[in-house]
Structure formats: C-alpha cells, structure tokens
C-alpha cells in the first residue's frame, strides 16, 4: 500500500487540538524533543520502510 496523502483522520480538529495540548507549557527544547519522540513512535507503528521513505520525501 502506498503512502496515504489523502485525509485519513476522523475529527481532524479534535486531533489537532490534542496534539497542541501535548505541547502546552513545554519549553522549546522540550517541545522539540517531544516531537522527535512522537515521530519515532509513529514510525515504529508504520514499520514499512517504503512508506517511511515516502513520508520523509513528502514532508521535505
């Protein structure tokens, strides 16, 4: 299955809210570190190297 670049999250606004809430009151360094941890966690869930490579390219 190729990388899905079409909308795929139900209640996008709710998710966005939750994501930003996780950053609330963090310092810049802590926020950056949190983002890194989050990316690695999601990448592990995806697992598929082809998809991960496509995602890295899509975000460039």
């Amino acid at each position: 299955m190729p990388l899905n670049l079409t909308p795929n999250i139900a209640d996008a606004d709710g998710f966005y809210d939750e994501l930003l809430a996780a950053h609330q009151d963090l310092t810049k360094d802590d926020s950056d570190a949190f983002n890194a941890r989050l990316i690695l966690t999601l990448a592990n869930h995806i697992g598929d190297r082809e998809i991960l490579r496509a995602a890295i390219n899509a975000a460039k």
Partner: protein
Amino acid sequence: MVAVRYDTVFKLYPYEKVPDQDKPARRHPVVIVGGGPIGLAIALDLGQRGTPALVLDDHDGAGTGSKAICFAKRTLDISHRLGVGQAMVDKGVVWNVGKVFHDENRLFEFNLLPEDGHRNPAFINLQQPYFEKFIYEGIEAAQANGAPIEVRGMNAVTALESHDDHVVVSVDTPDGPYTLEADWLIACDGARSPIREMMGLDFEGRVFEDNFLIADVRMTADFPTERWFWFEPPFKGSGQSALLHKQPDDVWRIDFQLGWEIDREKELDPANIRARVDAMLSSQSGEVPEYELVWTSIYTFQCRRMKNFRHGRVFFAGDSAHQVSPFGARGANSGMQDAENLAWKLNFVLNGHAPEGLLDSYDDERGFGADENILNSSRATDFMTPKSDMSKVFRNAVLELASKHSFARPFVNSGRLSVPCVYDGFPLFGVDALDGPTVTRPGASCTDATVDQGFLLDHLKGNFTLLAIGTEAPPQFTFDGVAIDVVHVPSPSPELSTRYLGDAAQAVYLIRPDQHIVARWADFDAEEVECAINLSLGKA
C-alpha cells in the same frame, strides 16, 4: 426618554403609544426583550402557535453596522418553517468557490458543490438588517392572520423584578415610563445584555486579544463571487489574517485581523483602510477595481457564556446568553437554534401540554450547543492566531503541506461552518431501535431530502410528527391533547432512503416540533410512540 444608540437601516416598528401605558400593570404570557433576529424569531414562532408574544425594543428597527452576514442551512430551514426563508435565500448570495492563501502563495481552492435533495443551500451571505426585516415581514403577515404578536418600538426596559410566578418589568418610552408583568420573560438583548446586568448574572469566558478591522466596500466591477482567505497576508500591515467575501447589493465584506496593540484612530483613517483594501483587491489581478467604502469599524471579540440560560421566569437566548468569535458563523445561527428550542417548549407549557420542568431542558440542550460552538470557534481562532511558538510551527507546517497534499487540508481552519448540534444521550430523547444512518439518530435535527415533488422539511410544520417510510402508520391523531402529524412516504426518494433508511427496509421516526428526532423504530407501535412523546415532553 429612550436613548438612541445607533441608526436604523429599516424602520420596522415605529413608536406608538398603547393603552397599557396608562393602566395598572397588565400581565402578558411572554415578554421578549430585544427585537433583533432572535427575539423576532421567537415572537413569530410563538405567535404562529397562538401564544401571545410581546416584543419590547429600545429602537424602532434593524440597526446599522457590521453584524451577522452568514446564515447557515439550519437557520434557513428554521426560517422556512416560519415562512420567511425563501425571501432570505432570494436576497442572499450563495458562493461555492473558496481560495486559501498563505502570504504570497495560493495554497488551494475548494468548491462546495451543493448536496442534492435540500431545499436550502449550505449557507447564504446576507446582511443582518435584511434578515431582521424578513422576519419582521413574517410577523406582519402572521398578525394579519390573527397571530397574537405585538412589537413595541422605543420601549426600553429599565428594571426587572423577579417573582416566583411572574416578572415585573419597568419600561421607559418617549411618553414616559410604565410597568407591565410577564409570566415569562426572554432576554434577547444582545451580548451586552442590560437584563443580564440588571440581574447581576455572570458571563464567563475567554477574551481573545485581537482587533478586527471590518471594511464593507461596494464595487460593481466584475469581481469573482468567491471567498478568499489569507493566513499572514502579504499586504503591508494587514496582520495575521484577512478575509474577503460577498454580500448582496454589490457589497463585499473585508476583515483584517490586526492584532492587539494597535492605534484605533490611525487604523480607522480611510486612507489607511483604502491602502489595505487596494492591496487586497489587486493582489490577484494586479489592478485596483473601483469601489466605495460603505462601512468600517474595529471590533474585538470574546468567547463566553452564562452558566445558566434559565433563571426562574427569565430566559436568555442568543448573544445575551453566549458569545463566540465570528469564525464559523456561530453567533446568529446558534441564536436561531435557541429560538426554535425555546418557542415550542414555552408554548406547550403555557397550553398545559407539558410540565414546567420541560423548560429546564432549554438550558440543558442549548448550553451544550453553546459549548460546542465556543469550542469550534476557539479552535479556529487558535489556528489563525497561534498562541505559542510551537503551535505556529505546526500551523505553518499544515499550511505548507496543504498546498501539496490533500491530507493536510482538513487541518486548515479559518472557521468551521455552523451545523446544528446533536443532543446525543440527552434525557428528552428516546430509543434508537432502527439500524439506520447516524445522521438521523435520535437527538439530531432532521436533514432535508426530496419527498414527492417537494422536500421533507416542508412536511414538518411545527407539531410533533410521525414520519413513516415504507411502512404503515395511523392517520393524524391526538395524544393527551397534543396533535400529532403523520407524514407517510410509501416509496422514498434515493436521498430520503440514504438519509433515513440506510440498510433498513422501512422506518418510523418521531420528530419534535423543532424538527429534532426523538426516537426511531422499524415499525409503528402505538405504545412505544406514546412513551417517546411523554419522554419528550418531560412527563416520563
């Protein structure tokens, strides 16, 4: 004396002296304070049901100024039930194409292709004074048919005295003060509600530190009927966001989000406004079309609500009860839902068809609606004006990705258009005994669909209604003095089928007077229906 705070665009209900003013306080069943869209809509709804409604307004018509301009489908559906929706749609502007910009870049455009099988469009743009005028014309038509509605202009409420079973109201007029009494009073007197002040009630929430400059311009030049929205517009000094969209009479509404620390006087200088407007209007074509400034103002906004919308014999509806940011058009639209929620309940209680406790559900249901609207409009505001560095990083990442990948577009938030809330799990709603679509589950308001040559909502005239699709139901009947309409659709249209049957072969819906679905079943069962009606009236 009654102070004049603003000019009126349409003089609708000029002051006339009435006999009440020379008599001891007379008792009225329902007194509505404020003749804006919400107050007038409640009066019209009550009057059409035969319940006397008296509106007191401290002016004599629809005020000038930049107010609500976007009226959503649910509002048009409610207005249609009241007989005034078509005039609004005929006058209003419908647009489908929107373009989203970030700085110099056009990120994407969207086309809101209308869904089939609805009488009304998803929304129209219409200046609020027209909206008020059309409702008022509905009131005049209803009065001509004997509806007991009275609107008194230049009647300013100056004091209120609450009792267990009535309210005493002091009113000032050009001929001096008088007093009247109300069984029930509804304060529709706006965000700065004098009634709320007089009663010393709370109005809690969040203040957004932002100023918005509004410029309504008239241009007859050929300019596309599209909504243009900028994040971080490139025009000099234009602030965090800018919005352009069309209203009737060749008027375009332009909003500039200027930030908090501004010099109001300087920003309101027509030369400065024109410089910004020139830059915006020429940004796509390179040419400045001819235009005239019709109205300019600067406003700030809050998201806040009263803790309770009912205080004994006094109700608050519309902006007096809750205030939201303008993004998503949730002000007047949510107020119209307050109006339809309260009108039938008050009518039923006054007629003795429901216990007084039914009225508490107004606060329960509309408080939920207010919270949902505040949440949505706060999210839009936070997206447009990120409140921290990291939220700005994410916001800009969304915008950048949105220009390339469609997945990011649902995150782009310049306001989510007002849709009615669903009263999921609220006490006055009953069973969902049908394997049907979620869009029409109990608690939801009825979505429209074609029925025969017309539309479903045309058949929901403000009584309790049984909708039987592909199955038998009794003809119109009366239960405990309450008239129950029956709409029988033997063979549903494809839209009605999709929206009301789903995988089910047949269905029976019980629908409240405000077109919200109480319960649904596969078959008609008299006992089940009677239980659901009792539940819906707060009798269970």
